[in-house]
C-alpha cells in the first residue's frame, strides 16, 4: 500500500478540502453571528506582582516541589552564585552549557562555575549545527533564565531565541533555571497576552516551552521515573526582590 500508487496521487487542495467541510457542517447552523471571543479576565502580571511577590514565590516553590523540582530560595541575586556553586558541587557535574542572556551575565555565573572547576560554555552562533548539538548533548548541566513562572502550577516558561537554545533545558541531565521575582505570574490565565507579544513579528519566538518539573514517565508498571528523555533533575534558583527596585522585563 506504500508503493508508487500513492506517490502519483493527486492531492486535495485547500479550497476543495474546506469546501467539503463547510458543506458537511450543513446550513442548519447559524453562521452570521460574530465569533464568540473568550477574553482573558486575568489581571496583568504587574498588578499581580503588587499583591506580593513573596507570596507568589511561596506558592510557586510549593508547586515546583510537588512536580518533582527543587527550589533554592536565596536572599538576593548576589547569592545566586553561591547557590549554583553548591548544587554543582553536590551533583558532580563537570561540563555546563549556558544561555547567552543578560541576567546570567549580570549574575556572573560563569565565574561561579569556574570556581568549582566546571567547564562552562555558551553555544556559539558560528559553529556548524552538528557541533552545536554535540556541545549541548555532552553537557552535564544546562543553565537558563526564565521568561515567566506560574505560581499556581509551578511551571517555568522559556522562550527560545538566538543564544537561548531550547535544547539547553532538555539535553543535559540537570537543568538549572534562574528565576527573578519580576517574571512571576499567578496562573496560566495571565500568559496569553504575554505570549502573544513574544510570538509577534518576524523575531517572534518559534519555540516556547512550559516546564513543570523534570522529565518523567510512568510507562513501566506505573512506577514514576525521572529523566527519561529530558533532565533527571530540575533546580530553580529564585530570590524575593531585586536590590534597587523592580527589574521589570528589560532583559527581554
Amino acid at each position: 500500500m506504500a508503493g508508487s500508487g500513492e506517490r502519483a496521487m493527486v492531492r486535495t487542495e485547500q479550497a476543495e478540502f474546506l469546501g467539503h467541510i463547510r458543506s458537511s457542517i450543513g446550513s442548519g447552523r447559524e453562521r452570521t453571528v460574530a465569533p464568540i471571543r473568550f477574553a482573558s479576565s486575568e489581571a496583568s502580571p504587574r498588578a499581580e506582582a503588587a499583591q506580593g511577590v513573596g507570596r507568589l514565590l511561596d506558592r510557586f516553590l510549593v508547586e515546583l516541589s510537588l512536580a518533582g523540582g527543587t527550589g533554592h530560595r536565596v536572599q538576593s541575586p548576589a547569592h545566586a552564585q553561591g547557590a549554583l556553586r553548591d548544587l554543582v558541587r553536590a551533583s558532580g557535574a563537570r561540563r555546563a552549557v549556558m544561555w547567552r542572556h543578560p541576567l546570567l551575565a549580570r549574575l556572573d555565573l560563569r565565574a561561579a562555575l569556574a570556581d568549582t572547576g566546571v567547564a562552562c560554555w555558551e553555544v556559539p552562533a558560528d559553529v556548524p549545527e552538528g557541533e552545536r548539538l554535540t556541545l549541548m548533548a555532552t553537557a552535564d548541566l544546562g543553565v537558563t533564565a526564565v521568561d515567566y513562572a506560574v505560581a499556581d502550577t509551578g511551571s517555568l516558561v522559556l522562550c527560545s531565541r538566538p543564544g537561548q537554545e531550547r535544547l539547553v533545558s532538555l539535553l543535559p541531565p540537570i537543568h538549572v533555571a534562574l528565576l527573578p521575582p519580576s517574571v512571576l505570574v499567578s496562573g496560566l490565565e495571565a500568559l496569553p497576552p504575554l505570549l502573544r507579544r513574544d510570538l509577534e513579528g518576524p523575531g517572534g519566538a518559534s519555540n516556547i516551552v512550559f516546564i513543570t518539573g523534570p522529565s518523567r514517565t510512568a510507562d513501566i508498571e506505573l512506577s514514576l521515573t525521572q529523566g527519561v528523555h529530558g533532565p533527571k533533575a530540575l533546580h530553580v534558583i529564585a530570590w524575593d526582590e531585586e536590590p534597587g527596585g523592580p527589574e521589570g522585563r528589560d532583559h527581554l
Partner: protein
Amino acid sequence: MKQGAPSLGFEQRASGALKNLPLRQALEAATERFIAQRASAFRDLPDAEALRKRARAIKEEVLTRLDDYLRQLADSVRKRGGVVHWAKDGTEARGIVLDLARARGVKSVVKSKSMVTEEIELNEALEGAGIRPVETDLGEWIIQLAGEKPSHIIAPAIHKSRHEVAELFSRKVGKSLAPDIELLTATAREQLRQEFLQAGMGISGVNFAVAETGTLVLVTNEGNGRMVTSVPPVHLAIMGIEKVIPTLEDLVVFLKILARSATGQKASSYVSLITGVGRDGDSDRPRELHLVILDNGRSRFLSGPFREALYCIRCGACLNVCPVYRQVGGHAYGATYPGPIGIIVTSMLQGPGGSKELAAASSLCGACQQACPLDIDIPHMLLELRREAVADRQASGGERAAFWLMAAILRYDGLYRLAGRVGRLLQRPFVRGTSIDRLPFRLSRWTAVRDFPPLAARTFRDRWRMLGRNGG
C-alpha cells in the same frame, strides 16, 4: 498478551482478555490510580464545572465555523514559514509523508506518541518504503519492540510487566538487563538519544493548534515531544481537523483540563508551543515545518447525532472509569481508539456499521460522560449506534422477532395478560425457591452467569384490585 487478530470478534477477544489474570491486575491498578489522581487534581480546581462548560462552548464554536478556523490556522502557519498539507484520508496523508521523506533521503524518523499516526497506520507505510520509524515515548517504544498496538490512549504499555520489558530491551541491546525500572528507563534514554541524533525527520501529533497564531501545541511528560520537534532537521506534524482552537486564551482552558483528566497533574511536564520555523539565528530548530491536516471521516460527524465526538481531546478519562474497559483492556476493542469514546471514533473512521458489535460493549452506566472533561454524551451516542445497527438490519432475525413480539405484548392489554399467564405456566419447571437459575437452549447463556427472577404468582394488577376492595 497477544494482539487480538482482526478476524476474531469482540466477544472472543474480550473472553481471551478475561482469562488473562496479569492483564486484569495491571488494568485494575492502572485505572484505579488514574481515577484517584484525576479526582484529587480536580479537587484543587474551584471552577471545574465552569471550565468544563467553557471548553464545550469553545469546541461548539470551532465546529460551527471549522472551515474558517482551519483557513486561519493554515494562513498563520504559512506566515511563519510552515507548509500546510490537506489530507482527506489516510492514503493521502501517508502519501504526503512518504513523498516528503523520500525527497529528503530520510532513512529513519523519530516519532512522539500520536494516536492519529496509529489511526492511519503510518509506521507500516514507512517500513514499506524502507524508512525506519522509531517510537520515542517509552510506552510506545515498548509496544513497537513487542510488535503490538497501544492498549490505552495515554499509557500504551500498561499491560506489560517489568520482566517483559527487560526481555524486550535485552533483545534490543544484545545483553541481559535486569528487570529494574530505573535501569530500563536509562537504557531507553541512551538508545533513543542516538535515534534522535540520527533521524532525518521528526513526526509528531498535535494536541491543540491555535488558529490566531499558527501555534502547534504538544503536551508530553517525558520530553520526547520536545526532542522530536527540535533535534531532526525536519518536523512534520499531523493533526485531525478537530484539533484547531481559536486563541491562546482557549489554549489555557484546555491545558487546565487535559493534564488533570489524563494523568491527574496540574500541568504536564512539558507543553511545547511551536510557531513556525523560527529565525536564522536560532541554533537549534528544524529547517522545515510541515503540517498535515487530516479529515479521514471526521467531517461525516460535523452534523448529526455524533457531532460531540469531535469534542474529544484524547485524555483517556472515559477508559479508566468504564466497567467494560477495566475488565478487558484496549486490545479487546480491536481498533486504534479503545474505550467508550473509542467506539464512537471507530464508527466515525470506519463508516456506518464499522463498530456494530462494539456498540454493545457498554453497560450504558454513564460513568464515561461523568468523567469526560468535555461532558460528551457518550451513552446517548452508543445508544444511537445501536439504533442504527438495528435500522440497518444488522441485528439477527431472532433478535428482531423477539423484540417485535415484546413490542406487541407491551402494546396490547389482552396480549399482555395472556403472556403473563402463559409465562407463569411455562416457568413452573424451572423455578427453584425465589429464582430461576437454569433455563434451556439459548436462554441458558443468561442463567449461566446470573439468576432470573420468576414472574410473581399474583400480578400487581390482581393485588391492586384486592387492595381496593379491602381498604376502600
